């Protein structure tokens, strides 16, 4: 409370001294305001679902619109499964690519290849979905001898392709930020390039790389359109649960598919906002953690430990 009071009077003083600063401040705080409004309105619309089902809204395993039964667990599981698959594919590829570009590739190629991979990041998700549906799903079906290629694996592959540029971009930046000094120190001691990468570059950049993976994860779990087009959309936990060749129904796909059908104010409508709430909270936590990792790291660098 004391903080706010001081803030308020300070604010008013500033308003008189330099009115421009107040406008600037309002712009800067718009992010907080909108984040808060988002939480408020999505919670308001989703409240009915949480009130009706309680904890079963999250752990209930039946999502059946006809019965007005909404247990989101299969959807949450579907999202996690698809994203986990994507992480397994994208992280090794992305991180090694970032290291290769920053440390091994001749200078003249670096910018070109980095720009190409960055361009991949800007391709709209609906294009990825379109290509996934048209070209990747049939290949997956053929390769594994399954009837339909719209399964969790396909969604994971499409998501992985979409996440790689994020991971390459962010970890590339982190690796480029490893001070020249560190590398010189190792090289001058007679370390080979690979030894330098292994024992200086990677350890120094590792928490930044971890943060980039988490950012990629946060992006991936919120991805909607591409996943909807290739995930198969069955609201069931696969049997066995690790069967990547069965269709799943991720959270985001459920919202996009059913929002058009749900009458405003109905329990279904509320349940869809409830899903939005779950997504909001999960990505909020992931992003905050990623930030915390980056900040802790910069403190260690400055010697505070």
């Amino acid at each position, binding site marked *: 409370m004391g903080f706010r009071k001081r803030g308020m009077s300070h604010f008013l003083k500033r308003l008189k001294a330099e009115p421009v600063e107040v406008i600037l401040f309002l712009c800067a705080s718009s*992010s907080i305001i909108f984040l808060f*409004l988002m939480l408020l309105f999505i919670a308001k619309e989703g409240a009915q679902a949480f009130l009706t089902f309680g904890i079963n809204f999250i752990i209930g395993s039946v999502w059946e619109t006809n019965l007005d039964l909404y247990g989101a667990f299969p959807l949450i599981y579907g999202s996690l499964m698809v994203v986990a698959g994507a992480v397994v594919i994208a992280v090794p590829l992305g991180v090694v690519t970032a290291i290769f570009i920053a440390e091994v590739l001749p200078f003249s190629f670096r910018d070109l290849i980095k720009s190409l991979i960055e361009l991949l990041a800007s391709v709209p998700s609906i294009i990825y979905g379109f290509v996934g549906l048209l070209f990747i799903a049939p290949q997956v079906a053929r390769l594994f001898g399954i009837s339909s290629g719209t399964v969790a694996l396909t969604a994971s592959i499409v998501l992985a392709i979409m996440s790689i540029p994020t991971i390459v971009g962010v970890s590339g930046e982190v690796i480029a930020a490893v001070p020249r000094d560190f590398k010189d120190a190792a090289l001058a001691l007679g370390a080979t390039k690979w030894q330098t990468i292994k024992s200086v570059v990677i350890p120094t950049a590792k928490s930044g790389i971890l943060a980039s993976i988490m950012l990629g994860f946060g992006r991936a779990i919120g991805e909607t359109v591409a996943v909807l087009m290739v995930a198969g959309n069955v609201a069931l936990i696969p049997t066995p649960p690790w069967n990547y060749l069965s269709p799943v129904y991720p959270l985001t796909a459920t919202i996009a598919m059913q929002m058009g059908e749900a009458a405003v104010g109905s329990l279904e409508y509320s349940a869809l906002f409830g899903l939005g709430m779950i997504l909001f909270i999960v990505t909020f936590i992931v992003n905050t953690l990623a930030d915390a990792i980056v900040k802790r790291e910069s403190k260690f660098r400055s010697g505070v430990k």
Partner: protein
Amino acid sequence: MSKVREKVLFAFLGIPTAICLGVFFWLASVLLSGFGTIKWNLLTASVLNGGYLEMIVGSAYLLLGAAGIASPVGVLAAIYLVEYAPRGRLTRVIDQAINNLAGVPSIVIGLFGYTFFCRQLGLGISLAAGWFTLSLMMIPIVIRGTEEAVRMVPNAFKEAALALGASKWRTVRSITAPSAAPGIITSILLGIARVAGETAAILFTSCVLVTRGLPKSPFEPVMALAFNLFVKIVALGESPDKVFGIAFILFLMVISLAAAATAFRIYYRRRQPWLK
């Protein structure tokens, strides 16, 4: 000899990079393969005659409006954060909020846009609702890009102005902002590129399948490439060859925006010696 072993090792490390590039070229070739099937006259033909013109211009309307909202807010916010913000709890919270806003999934932004802009503010399914919703996705990008650009302006420039007795805001206006302008423009372009292909956020907020012409006011709905592509594939189940044209144009539009942003950045980095 260890040099040889290292070469072999690096060759292996190069495989993932090759895969990533392979994916890029594959994607490009897949989309380019549809190039021949596109009837170019459809680009300038009305939707009423089976063309895409209103969708293309409609998408541009959405993007320009969103940029019109996000650019001033984002740029001013970034200037505040770099030049004015006191070091303290509030500033840290703002900083964190920007990161978190950037991380909100677009479908959640879309849900919020629908319940807040369309219903609460009564904008209905309209261009304006789409502008506000998309601008929420652009603001963090513009802020981060502008912050970086403003930080890169050498202190010596600012001190020179301040030493001459210029006020802080005056210095920002006449020294900092112009010096950072290329970086700011790049960040706005990147923001536009980022939302240009966005589907989930406009799904419930601003688009329709067909109407006549373009909206005559911000309170009318609009046709857009991404939305029409989505509805045509997912809801109407039109065959892929029928929608290839829309997919290709959308791809081309977004890629050229992103490439323009990158080219712009590289060009100005070269011209501004203090950016190393």
